[in-house]
Each structure stands twice: as C-alpha cells, then as structure tokens.
C-alpha cells in the first residue's frame, strides 16, 4: 500500500493499527474490577469480614482506579465519561440490591409454606393453637391455608376494578376529548393529583364512613347492619385506583395523534364514534397495561382493608356480607397474632407462603400488562 511508510510498525515488522493508539484493551475493565474487588477482599480479610462494606469499598476502588486509568491513557474527557458511566452502573446495582434481596428472602422462606399440603385448598377454619403446637413439635404437617385470603383478595380487587375502571376511563376521556382545558377540567386534574397522594388509611376510613352512613341500619339491611364487608374494602381500594387509572389513561389518550381524529371526522364520523372506534383502539394497549398496573398497585394494600373488610378465618364468597380475609391482612395477622402464641413457627411459615403468593400475583399482573400492551398495540408496519 502506498501509505505503508506512514503506518507505525512494531520492531518485528507486524503492522499495527494507527487508529488504535491511546486505547485500552477490552480486558482492562475486567482486570480493574477484579483488582478492586481483590484489594477490598484483602482489607476485610484483615479487618474482619463484612459483605456490605466489602461491596462498597470494592465499588469505590473500581470507580477511582478505572477513572484514573482512563484519564491517564485516553485523556481527561474519557476519564470523566468513565467516571459518570461507572457511577450510573453502581447506582443501578444499588437499586437492584433491595429487589433481589426481597425476592430471594421471600422465595427461600415462602417455598416451604406454599408446598405444604392444602395450602391453597384450605382456609384457617378449625386451625387453632392445638394444631399449631402439634405442627411445631413435629407431630403433623402445618395445617391451614390461604384459600380464604386468596379468594378475598381476588374478589375485593375485582370489585374495586369494576368500580374504578369505568369511572377512571370516562373521566380521562372527558378530560382529553371534551374538556378543552376549561376551569372544571383543571379543577378535576388538580383533585385527581390530590387523590393520588391520599394516604391509604384515609381511603379506608372514607369508605368505612360512607358505607356506615348507608348500611348501618339498626339490626337491618342486607349486610346485617354492618359496614365491614368486602364491598367496603373495594370502595376503599377504588379510591386509590381511580386517580392512577385516570392519569395513565389520560396520558395514553393524549398521545393519540390528532390527525387520526381529524381523519375520522373528515369521513363524516361523529365525535363519540371517533372516540370509541379510533381513539380508544389506538390507545387500548397503554390503557390496559395502565389498568393492570393499578390493580397490582392496590392488590398489596393492607391498612384500608384491615379497616373495611376486617379479617376472617373462613372463606367468604359474599362481598356484600360478612368479614373477609385478604392476603396482606393474612400476612399481618399470622405474624402479629400467631395462632399459637407459644409456638409461632407454623404461623410464620404460612405468612411467608402468603407473601410469596402475593408477590407472584403482582408479578403475574405485571407480565399480563406487558402481554396486553404487546397484543393490543397498533399493528406494526411489516410487508
């Protein structure tokens, strides 16, 4: 080649790439990381072992040394780039720690609970301190299960969804399609924001108060003169759900291009049909996943349900009558008031099992949300 004379060659005649001067080999990063961790391990091997501090010191050493190496070899701009990039990665791993830790703890503690015979199929009826004492002494398996709590959670969440989705959906449709930024719209948006911040216990008190005013007939009414029932809990949860549904649906409707609405109007289509057949189908994937995430958000509520649905040991299928158990309350009750106070281990095991089930449900809801978003998304271009 003509420019051979300009190309730096090593002493042994092998051609080197001039464009690669001032760069680091690919393994340098991993070597630096390994060195930092090794140095950190050495320090704590001498000073006494401590996992969190080992991680922190290792990360800081890596941050410092990798930045210095880059700044020295590749220049100051690369140095500061590497510094901030490494900082971002460290923050990412830091954020992962609690998540992984929770999943690991619940998995390792809860697996035994959910594998117990009858854990999903039975409730706590007939399970008393006697049975738990026997289980703790190893004379029988841990009896009792979460059937009542699972059914309570599903029913209450279902009713809460049935209440909040129509209200939330229609509110956001009105806000986006009809309100045109008037005074009422701004007031509603403001109130929805306020509602988002309502403490869940207040929502529970509100629901209990409203239902008390309407159901506490003296010894009468279908609910038997008692506002504590699944429906009250569903009202409390929908107070928490509605603002989430409104905000997420509103966002989704706002990103539907105006051109599509105009295209529909130009075909001589009325506004309500345009909303129903063009705007909502275009936004449905986002709306559905927003609703699913809102459900996941309220499925784990404890305080308002404790206030409104109470707790129970038997399965109650009727949301309009009688106390009801839910998974979060079940966990709370099993831990704080074990069935056999002198032998709490079986209760603890059931609580961990219920926690695992709750996490699985919430994760499933998140997966369903992703699936819905993908399934309903506007058809992708493809030829």
């Amino acid at each position: 080649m003509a420019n051979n004379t300009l190309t730096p060659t090593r002493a042994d005649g092998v051609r080197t790439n001039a464009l690669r001067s001032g760069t680091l080999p690919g393994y340098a990063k991993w070597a630096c990381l390994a060195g930092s961790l090794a140095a950190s391990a050495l320090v704590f091997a001498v000073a006494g072992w401590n996992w969190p501090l080992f991680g922190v010191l290792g990360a800081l050493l890596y941050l410092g040394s990798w930045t210095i190496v880059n700044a020295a070899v590749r220049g100051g701009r690369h140095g500061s780039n590497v510094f901030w990039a490494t900082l971002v990665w460290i923050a990412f791993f830091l954020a992962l720690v609690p998540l992984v830790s929770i999943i690991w703890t619940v998995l390792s503690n809860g697996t035994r609970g959910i594998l117990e015979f009858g854990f999903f199929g039975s409730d706590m009826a007939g399970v008393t301190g006697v049975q738990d004492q026997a289980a703790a002494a190893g004379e029988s398996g841990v009896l009792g299960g979460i059937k009542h709590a699972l059914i309570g959670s599903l029913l209450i969440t279902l009713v809460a969804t049935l209440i909040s989705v129509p209200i939330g959906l229609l509110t956001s449709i009105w806000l986006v399609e009809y309100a045109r930024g008037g005074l009422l719209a701004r007031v509603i948006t403001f109130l929805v924001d306020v509602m988002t911040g309502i403490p869940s216990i207040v929502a529970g008190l509100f629901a209990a108060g409203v239902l008390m005013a309407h159901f506490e007939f003296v010894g009468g009414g279908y609910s038997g003169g008692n506002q504590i029932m699944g429906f009250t809990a569903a009202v409390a949860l929908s107070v928490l759900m509605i603002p989430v549904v409104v905000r997420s649906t509103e966002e989704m409707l706002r990103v539907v291009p105006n051109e599509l609405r105009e295209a529909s109007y130009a075909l001589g289509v009325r506004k309500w049909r345009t909303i129903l057949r063009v705007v909502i189908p275009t936004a449905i994937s986002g709306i559905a996943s927003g609703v699913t995430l809102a459900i996941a958000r309220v499925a784990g509520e404890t305080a308002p349900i404790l206030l409104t649905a109470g707790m129970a040991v038997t399965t109650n299928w009727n949301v309009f009558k009688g106390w009801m158990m839910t998974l979060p309350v079940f966990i709370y009750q099993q831990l704080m008031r074990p069935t056999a106070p002198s032998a709490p281990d079986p209760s603890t095991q059931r609580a961990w099992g219920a926690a695992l089930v709750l996490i699985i449900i919430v994760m499933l809801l998140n997966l369903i949300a992703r699936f819905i978003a993908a399934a309903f998304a506007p058809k992708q271009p493809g030829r």
Partner: protein
Amino acid sequence: MSKRIEAHDVDIFYGKFKAVEGVSMTIEPRNVTAFIGPSGCGKTTFLRSINRMHEVLPGAHVTGRITLDGDNIYDPGVDPVTVRSMVGMVFQRPNPFPTMSIRDNVLAGYKINGKKMSKSDADDLVEQSLRGANLWEEVKDRLDRPGSGLSGGQQQRLCIARTVAVHPQVILMDEPCSALDPISTLAIEDLIRELKEDYTIVIVTHNMQQAARVSDTTAFFNIEGTGKPGKLIEMGPTEKIFSTPEVQATEDYITGRFG
C-alpha cells in the same frame, strides 16, 4: 356527484385572532382548484373551513357564508357531520388508522359509523375505491395487512381511497404531496386528474409546478405581515395566473421574487 362551492365575504378567526379576511370565490364542480401562497397566508385555514374541520380547534369560528350548491354550510341548524360526509379531506401527512388493515381502512367511513354492509358489497366497494385511487394492483394480495406497512405514497393513496369510499361531493386536499417523493407525487397528480371527472377538487400546495400541472383554476392568497389576516389576492384560470397575472404580488410570488 360534485357540487359548486361559493364563498361570500368569509372571515375566519382563531379566538380573537383574525386569520383570513374577506374571501369571496366560486369553486366550480368537476374542476381542480389550487390554492397557492406563502406560509401562514390562510390557505389551509380556508380549506379547512370548507368542511368545517377548522372548528375542531377550540375558539375557531367563521363569519360570512360558504355554500354547497346554494346551501349555506354555516347555517345555524347545519350539522358539521353532514357537511363532512359530503366534503371529504386528504391531509398533509398520510394518516391511515394504525389499528386497521388496508381493507378496513378503506371501509373506515362505514365501519366506524357502525353501518352494516354485506361482505360482497364491502368487497366491491374496497376494490372500486382502491382502483379509484390507483392502488388496487399494488395491494390486492395483502388487503388484510396493516395500512401502516405501506410506503408513504401508497399510504396517501390509501387515504384517498378511504375518502372516495364514502362518496363525497367534494375532495379537499391539504398539501397531499408535501411528504412524498417525486414518483409518488406523480402518481397522486395523475390520480387528481382522474378524480376531477367525478368530484370537485380543491388542493392546497406549496409547489407551484404542481399547481400549474394539475389545476384548472388557481387562487393566490397573501398576507401583508405577521399578525395580519390572510387575503385572497387573485383567482383565475391557471394559465392566466401563471402567465399574465393582474396583480403585481401574484407575479412576484410566481416568479420567485418572494415567498
């Protein structure tokens, strides 16, 4: 299947801002009328007021009269939906419905309105409309694929097919080729020449060669300055406007001395 449009002293407002002032014109049926003029001179605004589309924006309103074969579309009792079903519109950027297939896009005017139609009638209408938009041969084997999978020019012809399918009297086109390449532009222009056999066509364009190529009548809009309303300066047969315009501003614009 085409109507004469007459405008009498039309002023168009966005809130308090007067965007267009004092437009009076007659748009002949079975004819292509082009609106030309610099940006912001009110051509699109005036076009959108012909099918009452501008009032989709809050605060927009019109004074004066616009008539379709003598019927004032701004009469207090007139439903804008009726007007729009007679006056179709093709937009600047192709906007097929992303949730619908090619076939459903063509039938959108019926499907969204919930009108029942037998499958054979629907098939006939789809073929007839797509043929009318010179798109049938290109898409006849993939009618069930999403409309958004077509090229830009094909999408725009799909939008024209969708407009033609509801049998309007008038078709308004708002810079229909400005997002398209020259080949697709040529295809649309050929289509416009065919469509004028049946429809009254009004087209807004920034491309003066295009106005010269496709239109029979040309209207030149201009604006005196920012914040001033746009006005109709001159309107006449396209050959006359492009060769011997009566107003100096028209000549300046057409010869490229400004704008």
